[in-house]
């Protein structure tokens, strides 16, 4: 069945280091992927997205990598800051539509000062 899962539920990183959050997906028909950040007590916030015709996309301090061969997605955060502490979710969709995003269970990232 369709699922989006994460390899690690928690991740602790020293402030200033880079962090990598991984996500596996099982639906080979998925063609659009999004990363969201959720701070405690708040709603998720869009970080970056990538379509299946790309294998890498960069934003401000963040990079998303997509490996369709092994159905794996990762989010790299450069020079982590205390404000990066949050739960990070990957989400997938088919046909580049919004209607039915499938969210993973999330990885809690903790930045150690």
């Amino acid at each position, binding site marked *: 069945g369709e699922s*989006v899962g994460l390899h690690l*539920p928690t991740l602790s990183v020293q402030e200033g280091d880079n962090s990598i959050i991984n996500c596996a997906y099982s639906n080979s028909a998925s063609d*659009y992927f*999004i990363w969201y950040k959720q701070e405690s*007590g*708040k*709603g*998720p*916030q*869009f970080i970056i*997205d990538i379509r299946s015709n790309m294998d890498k996309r960069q934003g401000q301090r963040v990079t998303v990598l997509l490996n369709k061969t092994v159905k794996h997605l990762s989010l790299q955060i450069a020079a982590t800051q205390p404000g990066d502490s949050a739960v990070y*979710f990957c*989400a997938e*969709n088919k046909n*580049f*539509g*919004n*209607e*039915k*995003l499938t*969210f*993973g*269970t*999330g990885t809690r990232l903790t930045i150690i000062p």
Partner: protein
Amino acid sequence: NAGVTQTPKFRILKIGQSMTLQCAQDMNHNYMYWYRQDPGMGLKLIYYSVGAGITDKGEVPNGYNVSRSTTEDFPLRLELAAPSQTSVYFCASSYSAGARGTGELFFGEGSRLTVL
């Protein structure tokens, strides 16, 4: 812009009671969604709407109802509350799929519901 506004932020219900979670957005988005998030889990889609007068079921619609009489508002109704509906509920909105080139959903702050 206020973005997506949800009320109430917290509510405790008794089993069998009914209530409506309110959601309003001021971004003129066509698409609106209701998700629930159980502890330590991702978000599951309850219902969504692609425009006023149009609604459709998501992954977990049982026990809920929605309506979309205006572009701005998308209330979620719980008719007979059950303990299994204890969760945090998030409303979200977005532009039409593909219209702006991204799948960015704008989420509200959430409504924490406890059914006892």
